[in-house]
């Protein structure tokens, strides 16, 4: 059998198709992007090597739309950490406490995760409609006439927050489910032992359940932050980054720079900034959590 499992020809046939495709479509293009990001190039004419000049321009804040997009990326992160994550955690803790109907609620909360972001974005455009939208009607019923007529997505002051809400809404169920699985994996004996020692439900959660859930919490927070930085679908569909860059996101600026303004070098530098930001944040969070988690 050893001979069969060491068969070089078979190994090549098993590995090569997948590996070749992966190298050609994911790995090599990533390095090509690094090279492009060092060029001044419009895609057709000469490629001028300009070193780190693109990055210098991005970091020194000369590209307004990109600055705004990074700020918005962090703003979305902030919203997810402030609203989405605590909500998901509370729901997960309630549902994991042997409550009646936990399966039903879990299944319902998860439904939006299955929907396409484009559908969700277009649906919320109707919900936000200042004349006939659902939100308009609700605000009218509550007697908030002046609020009801705000064009949420057309106003630079409100566009980013309004476009963020569907994202929070869609993914809350996903994080709830991850955290729920984490909470469920805490051994019941530990909870019971805490009870016998006289700990109330709140103490049990803070002293026993949450510390044991730290690995899952780490995964959730990493995904929340990276997801916010990379966000594209909902905001592209709803506002395309407008009005006047108020809801701009890094991926949107990148696409615009490449495919509308034909600045291939600059666009690639933006792509690399997104990659770097994601890697840095992951590494940083690993460090923070590893220190807390002996």
């Amino acid at each position, binding site marked *: *059998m*050893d001979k*069969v499992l*060491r068969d*070089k020809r*078979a*190994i090549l046939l*098993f*590995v090569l*198709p*997948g590996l070749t*495709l*992966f*190298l050609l*479509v*994911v*790995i*090599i*293009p*990533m390095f*090509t*992007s690094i090279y*492009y990001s060092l060029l001044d190039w419009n895609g057709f004419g000469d490629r001028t090597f300009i070193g780190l000049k693109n990055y210098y321009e991005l970091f020194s804040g000369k590209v307004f739309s990109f600055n705004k997009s990074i700020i918005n990326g962090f703003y979305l992160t902030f919203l997810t950490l402030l609203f989405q994550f605590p*909500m998901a955690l509370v*729901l997960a803790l309630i549902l994991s406490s042997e*409550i*009646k109907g936990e399966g039903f609620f879990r299944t*319902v909360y*998860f439904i939006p995760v*299955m*929907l*396409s*972001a*484009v559908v969700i974005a*277009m*649906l919320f455009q*109707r*919900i936000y409609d200042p004349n*006939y939208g*659902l939100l308009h009607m609700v605000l009218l019923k509550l007697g908030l006439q002046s609020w009801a007529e705000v064009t949420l997505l057309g106003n630079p002051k409100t566009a980013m927050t309004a476009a963020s809400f569907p994202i929070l*809404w869609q993914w809350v*169920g*996903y994080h709830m489910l*991850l955290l729920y*699985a984490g909470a469920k994996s805490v051994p019941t004996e530990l909870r019971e032992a805490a009870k016998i020692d006289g700990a109330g439900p709140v103490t049990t959660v803070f002293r026993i359940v949450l510390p044991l859930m730290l*690995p899952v919490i780490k*995964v959730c927070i990493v995904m929340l932050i990276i997801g916010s930085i*990379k966000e594209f*679908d909902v905001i*592209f569909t709803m506002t395309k980054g407008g009005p006047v860059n108020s809801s701009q996101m890094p991926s949107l600026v*990148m696409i615009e720079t*490449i495919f509308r303004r034909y600045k*291939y070098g600059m*666009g*690639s530098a933006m792509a690399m900034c*997104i*990659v770097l930001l*994601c*890697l840095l944040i*992951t590494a940083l969070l690993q460090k923070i959590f590893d220190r807390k988690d002996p």
Partner: protein
Amino acid sequence: MKKFNIKNTPLYSFLIVVALIQIYPLIYLFFFSLKSNSEIFGGNVAGLPTNWLWSNYKSIFSNSDMPTYFFNSTVVTVISILLVIFLGGTVGYAIERMRWRYSKLVLTIFLLGIMIPAQSSLLPLFMNLSHFNITDSYQALILPYVSFGLPISIYIFTGFYESIPYEMEESGCLEGCSIFQIYSYIIMPMVKPAIATIAIFTYRNVWNELLFAVTFITKKAYKTVPVGLMSLRGRYSTKWGPIGAALLIAVLPSLILYFILSKQVQESMTSGAIKG
């Protein structure tokens, strides 16, 4: 075990309110997909439709390109799922079960891929596709979908292969099977749950994907549902009913899949994240 009692009423009210918030937008969508503009503009925004206008669905099927988009999405999704399973299964098998020097290195390359966002390869990929004149084709989407799907697929497969006893291969050898026969007739049937998990996970990602679809496809003939919906929006900007119908048609396969296999879907969607 706690049973329902009066003390729990606030807790249940909270859970029910959240459930309504999560599900009501879909009900609202279903209702307005069956209404005429005059009904919506006449003030019936949230209520049941007075006349159930199924003709909105008919007009989306016969007067728009939705059937084409739906067909394209189906082709791209099915082929991507098959390839992700086939390629991921074989690479994963070689890495986990077979003995060769670089298996760890290859695994590391693929697992690093989990960290690489699609943005990083978008432009070079676009250049290559244009070079071979295959933007606006099914391949233009299938290639990146399969490649970016492989890392998770391999990760899940290797986890399942790990738990299979080596006696399975041994018995295959004694019967005189080749490694390919062992793989297809003995190993594959044993990892059906992995296949289901990967199929569902890949389905959700591919059916809803937008970034590649919107940059690589400009011709109507190859647009997938998400991109197609965005172009329908222009044409039906003031017609709420038909656009609602189109949105609902777009999510119907996902909803049906979820209602039939909700537990399995929940498991697959989280299985990729457990490792972190």
